[in-house]
């Protein structure tokens, strides 16, 4: 099919313009991570890149379709709710970096709109698959004891695979397709949006937010759309065949009349600086408040706490030893010496905990890291 022609055409935005029915937006990009945004045109205000949180955005030309987005999900969270949500999120981490503080995080919040595509498309084609139908088989276990047999019947579920083929002529609407490369990871962290609450785009919803410019090529977006459409078709073919399972699905299809709709999703982005100086993003779903991001514990703080505990242990041990030395002169004082030595031992053992905790905690956080191009 000629899906390229159907994909919304992009044109370069090079200067401040009043496109989308709103004034004062200009294209800007990050020299560090190469992500492009639309920001309110005010050359004096430095805007930190919400993607890498390292460099400020600078004016640059960008490719963008001229038509405004068709839909938008407005920000729906109150400031106090954001604070409560963030506080709860960061307080779960013991020994967090000093920079990972609710007040600082709230102060750094940037409202950002992330674009995504919704595609409507008709599929006409021929499908083929192996459909799996479950059936139940009666089996048994026989027990012999004290000269008597006892039977226990068991029902086993098995799958019978049969070939199925046919034609498909279906229309799929509002199939979500990423417009940015980090969209799937973002959704994994802050959850999906209720797309049915989307409203027709109006410039007033943008406020002071900045808007991420799509960085997925139209070809990639189409491939992603096609893959999602195929998955939907596969699910429906399985359902049509009345099968419980399906494998070896293949579809030879024509994708007709694709209709692309752009939707803007609200995300709050903030960051903190970890021990190693790297800035870690925290994302908040602007619709439902779900928070996501990497929460690193401070290994430096851990070592500091461990040092204090170890120093205390050392001091107690010295005191205990001295007490034990004078015990022959004043025997009752021996009990204090023993207590001091015991406390020194406990403090020494406890000193291990703040060292191990950040290491273990940070290991568990690694899979949550968003792969970023920096």
């Amino acid at each position, binding site marked *: 099919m000629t899906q390229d022609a159907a994909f919304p055409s992009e044109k370069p935005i090079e200067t401040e313009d009043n496109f989308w029915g709103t004034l004062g937006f200009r294209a800007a990009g990050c020299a560090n991570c190469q992500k492009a945004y639309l920001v309110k045109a005010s050359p004096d205000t430095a805007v930190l890149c919400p993607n890498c949180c390292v460099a400020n955005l600078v004016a640059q030309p960008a490719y963008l379709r001229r038509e405004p987005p068709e839909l938008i999900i407005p920000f729906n969270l109150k400031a106090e709710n954001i604070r409560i949500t963030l506080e709860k999120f960061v307080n779960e981490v013991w020994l967090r970096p000093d920079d990972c503080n609710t007040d600082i995080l709230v102060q750094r919040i940037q409202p950002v709109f992330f674009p995504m595509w919704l595609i409507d498309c008709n599929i*006409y*084609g*021929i*499908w083929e698959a192996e459909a799996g139908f479950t*059936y*139940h*088989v*009666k*089996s*048994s*276990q*026989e*027990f*012999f*004891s*004290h000269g008597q*047999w006892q*039977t226990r019947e068991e029902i086993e579920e*098995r799958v019978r695979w*049969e*070939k*199925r*083929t*046919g*034609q*498909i*002529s*279906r*229309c799929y609407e509002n199939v979500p397709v990423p417009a940015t490369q980090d969209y799937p990871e973002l959704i994994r962290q802050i959850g999906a949006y209720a797309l049915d609450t989307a409203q027709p785009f109006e410039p007033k919803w943008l406020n002071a937010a900045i808007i991420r410019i799509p960085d997925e090529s139209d070809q990639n977006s189409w491939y992603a759309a096609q893959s999602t459409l195929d998955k939907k078709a596969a699910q*429906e*073919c399985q*359902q*049509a*065949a*009345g099968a419980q399972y399906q494998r070896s699905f293949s579809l030879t299809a024509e994708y007709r009349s694709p209709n692309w709709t752009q939707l803007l999703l609200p995300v709050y982005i903030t960051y903190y600086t970890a021990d190693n100086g790297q800035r870690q993003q925290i994302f908040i779903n602007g619709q439902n408040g779900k928070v996501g991001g990497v929460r690193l514990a401070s290994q430096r703080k851990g070592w500091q706490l461990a040092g204090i505990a170890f120093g205390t242990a050392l001091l107690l041990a010295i005191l205990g030893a001295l007490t034990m030395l004078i015990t022959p002169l004043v025997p009752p004082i021996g009990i204090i010496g023993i207590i001091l030595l015991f406390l020194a031992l406990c403090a020494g053992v406890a000193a291990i905990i703040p060292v191990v905790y950040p290491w273990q905690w940070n290991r568990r956080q690694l899979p949550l890291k968003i792969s970023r191009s920096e």
Partner: protein
Amino acid sequence: MSLPGFTPPPNFENVASQIEGITVFAPRPETPPQPERVEFKCPNCGAATRFDVSAGGVACEHCSYQAQTASQVIGLQAKTSEFTLEALSRFAQGWGTQRRVMHCNSCGGDISMPEGALSITCPFCASNEVNLRSDTTSSTRPGFLIPFKIQPQENASRLRAWLSKGWFHPENLTSLASTDQFVGIYLPFWTFDAQIQANWKAEVGYERQVRYYDHGSKGWRTRTEIDWVWKTGQVHLDINSLLITGTSHISHRIAEKILPFDLDQLVAYAPDYLAGWQALAYDIDLPTAWERGKAMMREKAKTSCYHSIDSPHVRNFSMNADFSNESWRYILLPIYLSTYRYEGKTFQVMVNGQNGVIAGQKPVAWWKIWTAIAAMFAPGILLGLIGLLLLIFGGIGIIPLGIALVLVFAALFFSIWLYQKALDSEAA
């Protein structure tokens, strides 16, 4: 909307779709021949044809017409079905050829008969009082069968030879027995396959010789003591094609004597094989037959467990047998049934239609049995009497009395064995 150029693969048919806009084509089920009427008529002379054993196909008795039955020997590769009740319903109903069921009022047997036959001697009870009734029972179609290999005309000589065997039967049995015609009938059988993983636990006793001083005899002796040890073990058993009768209208005792059948000769069911022959539908259903089969299998597993124990002393034996890959077939096996009358009594005979093994009831000349028993007891009793007489004259009589006792016990043992054998010969 349908796309141009879509042709479903051959043998695929349109099936119901649960979503509008999607059509579903599935492989056409391997439908067995519909129960349409198949007339076995000779294309040359129009006479009725029947399956001819020597020709291996349908043949005409009036002209030289022969048609080979197109069915390959499948043997034990014959497809098995899993133990799901849905599998039963998947099978087609009926026999494929229009047949009628004859119901015997005397013994209750149901015999599937070729159309046109109005009456017949019941092969089970020799009764001629047979009524027709419509076939209201729905049977699962048998999947496979073993065709008759033994010619019907061979059975008379086979019967005569069999009747003449054995010394305790009437001497005039061969000459006086009025034999009815042998009826070739396909009887229903179930075959069962299963794998069994058996785990056993038992106390196993190992013998140990112990020397001890006997204060009574003032000497050293040995005695056997058993050390009991708890042991466990595993046995894996593959059971293939265990045959269980599918009809209650034949004597299972006689049927077991004409087993086994060579199941490597199984062929796919085709109505041709039944042309001119009788066939009986099952009346012992699959669950009932499987319970019997399972009971036999678990006993086999138990025996295998016992055999795996390295001592004859076993107590507190317990085991569990885990069945897996259970499957079954419904097959027809060829058997000739007949009865003969001797001195007003009816006796049943069966011949394995594949290999000719014959078994059945045989009358017993009881005077021969009693004479033999008397002859066996006579030496013991006689010697006992002599021993008693000798006791009057002194202690020497104790020796013949002892020998007499041994002889009487031996006679008793052989008499019981002979009596059982005679009863077994007459039993149905």
